């Protein structure tokens, strides 16, 4: 399976480990990716808050580049905000001819045009539907039995476009987590909002939202995410929130492909595990259970 890879700006900066882990995991699963040439920022929530047309033209430029470079090849997007923006641009291009004309006028000077023929896919969609839990089971190098994992979906990978799971009660990460031998933490905050950019401009609101999520994760060893914004909000303010709430709410936060990559026995460095901001004491030791082949060798020797 071959995809265009659209990392997005965060994955070149604050979320470098998400990009490392995504590319390492896909390679291990046999997926082929090719970085989208000359891609640009999707506009995040900033463009949407300033100009409607800009919020469509920026992501549409990426769709146009993909359509031109390899018609019919899906674009794989790991960041939920980028995914939503590209998906929305695709939706408008397909269903709103007046807006499509305007978008194409903004791309004209570069010799680009967009028709909506290329599919935009979230990483979670690709992992669940194109690869699935079996792909993890058959390549399992390390059992994560003993770990309790809280799957966190956030908002924008399933809302407002519920393409690959139930947006009210998503569950598609569960088979992937169970395939590693880990247990799924039962909780009700898996699709609640982390506050997105509130953490920068309206901090008290962001801290309150994240506090509720961390609180409900009590009992889990780790929360796994599929979005750089969610990841940063959940991992970077735990000390402050713990102080505010008068209880220890520190918990490890990993990107889903980092967790799956460990189960597949990929090197920690390739998964960028040294770059995470929120790793609780003792967690890495738990995550580093011996590889299955090592255990088998030991058993043979005995």
């Amino acid at each position, binding site marked *: 399976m071959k995809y265009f890879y659209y990392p997005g700006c965060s994955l070149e*900066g604050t979320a*470098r480990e998400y990009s490392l882990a995504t590319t390492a995991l896909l390679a291990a699963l046999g997926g082929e990716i090719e970085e989208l040439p000359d891609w640009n920022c999707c506009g995040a929530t900033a463009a949407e808050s*300033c100009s409607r047309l800009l919020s469509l*033209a920026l992501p549409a430029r990426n769709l146009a580049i993909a359509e031109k470079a390899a018609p019919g090849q899906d674009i794989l997007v790991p960041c939920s905000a980028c995914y939503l923006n590209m998906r929305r641009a695709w939706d408008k291009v397909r269903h709103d001819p007046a807006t499509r004309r305007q978008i194409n006028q903004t791309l004209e000077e570069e010799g680009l045009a967009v028709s909506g023929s290329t599919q935009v896919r979230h990483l979670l969609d690709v992992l669940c539907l194109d690869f699935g839990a079996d792909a993890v089971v058959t390549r399992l190098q390390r059992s994560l039995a003993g770990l309790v994992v809280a799957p966190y979906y956030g908002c924008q990978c399933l*809302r407002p476009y519920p393409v690959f799971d139930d947006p009210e009660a998503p569950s598609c990460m569960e088979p992937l987590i169970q395939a590693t031998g880990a247990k799924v933490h039962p909780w009700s905050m898996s699709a*609640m909002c982390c506050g997105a950019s509130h953490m920068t401009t309206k901090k008290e609101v962001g801290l309150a939202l994240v506090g509720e999520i961390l609180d409900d994760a009590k009992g889990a060893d780790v929360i796994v995410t599929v979005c750089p914004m969610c990841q940063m909000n959940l991992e970077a303010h735990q000390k402050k929130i713990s102080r505010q709430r008068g209880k220890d709410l520190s918990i490890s936060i990993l990107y889903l492909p980092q967790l799956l990559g460990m189960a597949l026995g990929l090197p920690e460095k390739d998964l960028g595990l040294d770059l995470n901001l929120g790793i609780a004491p003792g967690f890495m030791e738990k995550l580093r259970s011996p590889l299955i082949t090592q255990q088998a060798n030991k058993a043979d020797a005995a």
Partner: protein
Amino acid sequence: MIPKERPFVAPDKYHELEGVQKMLAACIQCGTCSGSCPNAFAMDVTPRTLWRMVLRGEKEAIFETRTFILCSSCYSCTLRCPRGLPLTDAMSALKQMAFREGRAPYKASTRFYKSFLDSVRRHGRVREGEMMTLYFLSMKNPLLPLQFAPLGIQLMLKGKVGAPFPTRGKRPLESLFNKVMQLENNP
């Protein structure tokens, strides 16, 4: 599920209150939006009340509320609205109006968005360190950067953000940005 028929708003009406009124015309004031909103606890006016204010055309009062600027685009209301209204889009349209009209109460958010887009316009991609510096400069509050210093230092130590100094870029998206401005000002 996303309803197939959505209220149609012509592109040139999108930045007028009239356009937002069209989006909300079928609102039945049930309050599902307010009940679904994770940020409602911090709002002075709930989403349901805000929609009523929009439909009554109370423009000045709308731009005194914190409601739309506290929308974090989680799309819970949009998904659950029994009338299938594009409520998150309506919030965005109000943000865009506040931005275009330079309304003072929202300067923290609008300056943040502007700093972000300035960085995108320079380089085609946002440079997170540069964006934050542009934001601090635009806010003209010397104490503001201190709030972000602990996280900024952590990120720099991990090699995750580059130099926080704004740099001149190749401006690869200049034609796109210019055309957008031209079309939005003279549709």
